[in-house]
């Protein structure tokens, strides 16, 4: 897997590169600005780009703009966006154009190397990785909605993990239940939220996020 990193803090940039190289992943370029990042994408044609949201010159959302532009130049590029804060507006902006090959994680998740690598591989393989914090925020904001209130606590856990982009097997592992039980929960969730059942991970995330966005707008 060929990786390009865009992160303006040199220490952090080299830290992430060090970690990925130690896991025998191929970090082909590390860059500190949107321009250098786009150039590196053009030159190296990587499989995955890891991009910080805040980058020079204004240190606001340059990273998101750069990620969108990189995907325009190289369709099919997997992008994992790292952010110091959970900003729901970033998430929705990023996910608006589709959730395939896209991840949005808090920076400190990189330290949980196992889960971070999972997310990286999932995104590279065409899936989605959404930070639990983002999902939690979305769920909190929509708690008053009747559809979500009908969910049991366990179903909520499953929904949150689904929204992170995990598949049935991964969910059953995290919750220490059988895959069959997970399957049952998901069917129940879809029924309670009036969504057509499907097993493909990204479509499930889309469905969940769309549903959450809609309830927000109504609320």
């Amino acid at each position, binding site marked *: 897997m060929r990786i390009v990193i865009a992160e303006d803090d040199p220490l952090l940039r080299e*830290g992430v590169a*060090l970690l990925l190289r130690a896991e025998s992943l191929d970090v082909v370029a590390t860059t500190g600005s949107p321009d250098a990042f786009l150039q590196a994408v053009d030159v190296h044609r990587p499989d995955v780009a890891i991009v910080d949201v*805040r980058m020079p010159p204004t240190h606001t959302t340059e990273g998101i703009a750069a990620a969108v532009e990189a995907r325009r130049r190289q369709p099919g590029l997997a992008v994992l966006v790292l952010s*110091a804060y959970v900003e729901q507006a970033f998430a929705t902006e990023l996910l608006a154009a589709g959730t395939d090959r896209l991840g949005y994680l808090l920076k400190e998740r990189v330290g949980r190397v*196992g889960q971070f690598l999972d997310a990286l591989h999932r995104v590279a393989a065409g899936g989605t990785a959404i930070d639990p914090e983002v999902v939690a925020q979305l769920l909190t904001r929509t708690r008053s909605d009747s559809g979500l209130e009908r969910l049991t606590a366990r179903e909520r856990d499953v929904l949150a993990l689904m929204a992170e982009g995990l598949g049935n097997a991964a969910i059953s592992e995290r919750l220490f239940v059988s895959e069959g039980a997970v399957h049952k929960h998901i069917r129940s969730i879809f029924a309670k939220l009036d969504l057509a059942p499907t097993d493909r991970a990204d479509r499930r995330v889309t469905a969940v996020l769309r549903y959450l966005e809609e309830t927000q707008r109504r609320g």
Partner: protein
Amino acid sequence: MEPPETREDARTDIRRAPAGNARRGLTAHARRLLDAVEHLVSGLATALLAFAGLLWLVLVALTCLIGVGLLLAPTVPRVVRSVAERERDRLSRWGPEIVRLGPAPDGVRAALADRAVRREVGWLLVHSTLGLFLSLSGLTMVANSVQDVTYPLWWRMLPPDDVTPGLVFWDVRAPGGVLAVALFGVGLAVCFLLLGPGMAWAQAWPGRRLLTPTADMDLSLRVAQLSATRAAALDAHAAELRRIERSLHDGAQNRLVAVTVLLGAAHRALAQNRPGAEEMLERAQETAEQALAELRTVVRSILPPVLSDRGLTDALSGLAANCAVPCRVDIDASGRCAVSIEATAYFVVAEALTNISRHSGARHATVTVRRAGGLLSLRVEDDGVGGADERHGSGLTGMRSRIEAHDGRLTLSSPPGGPTILDVELPCGL
């Protein structure tokens, strides 16, 4: 801008002028004379504008009778206001300040209901007639006196059939005629010396009466001014919060993320028995220490602990002791000021000393602090290369906005070659 004392002088001069005062000496007379000329010239400019405004007012009023003027009517208050604002600026230059009122109310009805606009129209009538007359007659006196006094020097060069200067009714070719012209010129000059300042004062008087805000407007203007300074203060506050957020994010927060990344990597290396874990732990520790150092810097920049514990004197002495350039501190300010004022004073000195050690090449610096009459005055001097410019480098700009948020003043003198002197005044209560 002139210092206030000079302005006060100018005003009393004009009031006393008709009585004259021999003891004041020649220079005082000359200055009074020049002031009067200057005021009558600038008064002529606004009087001509007022006259044009009056013509427009009459024209619109007449065309209103046939309907067309109704379309033009809304322009009248705006024209009157813009002329009045020029007169306000003019009068503010040599007397007590008359605050500008800003744009006139929209619409004729609102303008008619506005007392300020009605008073301005009254002023316009007086200034465009009497004011114009005063300027023209005063300046005619000046021009003719200059012409007549010098007349003996150049009258022979004039064509023989047209030698009589203006205002002169006798035949200059008669014996003594030319001398009489010169004496007449002197007479005119004396007249102007006696009357001129009074004329300038009389010309300004309607403006000073009618263009100043009335008591109720005065309050609303002060509210507007206070709102503006309050907004500026809040802006400065928001900018400060942004600065703190930025330094936390770029510093400590990123360092801590790097620590988790390094710890995660070390964890994996240990779990899988790979080499390099020790080096990663070493780096994680270093990074955590950096994060702590950066947190300390940020905390100190929010409010230096020494400032709240020991006061401004000790805090500034500490700054000077840490300065790379030898720095002498001379503080004579007993008692405590408001925390925000002390903090501002501290940061101004800190920023100034940083600039000195970075850019000035100075060998000595001096910090002087005085407190008197409700003002905390700071002066930071150095013997460096000078040439400090507010437009280059945001440090000075930040300093200025911080000071102005407290209604203070900053003056910087830094000619190329030095020395650089930074003067700051902060109101700190009595």
